């Protein structure tokens, strides 16, 4: 911003604030990490969906043999299955956390009731059961992701 001979500094953190939670001290705030993961997995999913559309029209483009060959590449350890595995992890976290966010953002559930400040001064929305849901979502998605890894790489 400029005014006369003064130039003022825009101190915006910018996009980095949504992609890297530790630009500020986030003690007592795992919601911020969930928010960041939701963003990152969302970006991964956009890429995945684009590739997925290209790959599922293989039969029309190159015939069924090419399709079978492509699907076979999804199991066993190779770069394609590795990318697929990452996309599946993103999918699981994004969908489970999405359910939590629907509860919180659409129905305003899990954020407690408004209350008068009292020690130890933790606002109700950080004490509500959405906080528990974060832990449930993370553990559940790790388990499902591991199972998917087993199916993709080892079966």
């Amino acid at each position: 911003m400029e005014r006369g001979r003064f130039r003022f500094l825009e101190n915006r953190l910018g996009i980095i604030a949504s992609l890297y939670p530790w630009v500020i001290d986030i003690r007592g705030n795992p919601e911020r990490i969930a928010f960041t993961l939701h963003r990152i997995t969302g970006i991964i999913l956009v890429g995945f969906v684009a590739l997925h559309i290209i790959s599922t029209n293989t039969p029309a483009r190159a015939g069924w043999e090419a399709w079978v060959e492509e699907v076979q590449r999804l199991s066993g350890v190779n770069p394609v299955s590795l990318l697929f595995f990452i996309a599946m992890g993103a999918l699981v976290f994004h969908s489970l956390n999405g359910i939590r966010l629907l509860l919180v953002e659409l129905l305003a559930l899990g954020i407690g009731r408004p209350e008068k400040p009292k020690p130890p001064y933790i606002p109700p929305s950080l004490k509500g059961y959405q906080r528990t849901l974060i832990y449930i979502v993370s553990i559940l998605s790790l388990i499902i992701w591991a199972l998917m890894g087993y199916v993709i790489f080892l079966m």
Partner: protein
Amino acid sequence: MVFDLKAATRTPPRVVRIRVRRYNPETGSSWWQEYEVETYRGMTVLDALLKIKAERDHSLVFRYSCRMGVCGSCGLVVNKRPRLACQTQIAEVASEGRPVVELEPLYNFTVLRDLATDFTEFFRKHRFVKPYILRRDVREREEPTLEYSQTPDELAEYYEYSLCISCGLCDAACPVYASDPNFLGPQALAQAYRYIADTRDELWEERLRLLDVEGSIFKCHFAATCSAVCPKMVDPAGAIQRLRSTLLKYKVRVYRKTRVAKVVPPMEKREPQKPLPPEATLVEGVDLKLLEEEKPVIPVEKLLTS
């Protein structure tokens, strides 16, 4: 805010290094400057800054007014966390192992000089949500002769949000506000909800329509850092979720504000209360008749000496 309730009982390191991110608007240069400050027990970050200004460097610029966490003008980023300088003790943010306190101007604001930031935009957004009670009858609002009646339950619905001191810490912490200057920000949105939840306010429909725009509630994605840093436990994140759900319900036509406060004559002009019937017991568990018969003896001398 996650308060360190024990901070006041601890002694800070004897000498701390205060690193200040400075900025000069004439040359456009920004640099870190370090000052060593001798501390005392109970010293706040603001005390340290004042000491530097008095004894070491009078060119250091920062803003403060009340020194007791009420005015909201001393917001800073202390060790990467937005805090009120006057409410943060040195013992809370520095330890013997790391006697360093890093001070930066509030993120997401325009820096005027050193630690002072520009709040013009912040208050423009605050004004945008009309932070005052609106009634259909303008006369009643401007020249009130009557009072609004409100029950304690109705007060509890919004009391928490009315504690906001407009310090801007929540906007400094918000990741959406960091990348989108047009976002209204947690402070303004929490205040918008505060007036919608207030039963004394009548124009809730206009308020909801005002917020149904780009860059308003639907930009929030519940990172909840605003609530985590708020020094007054206002819980802007919770307010925004309630506001969004209210607006969505209003859009699908299942929401109406049912409770709107009526105007009543002031208390003193009301009809005198009817006297209680003689058989009513005023205090539960106390035998009034017995009390009247033998007056309890209050040991005044004992109370005074102990």
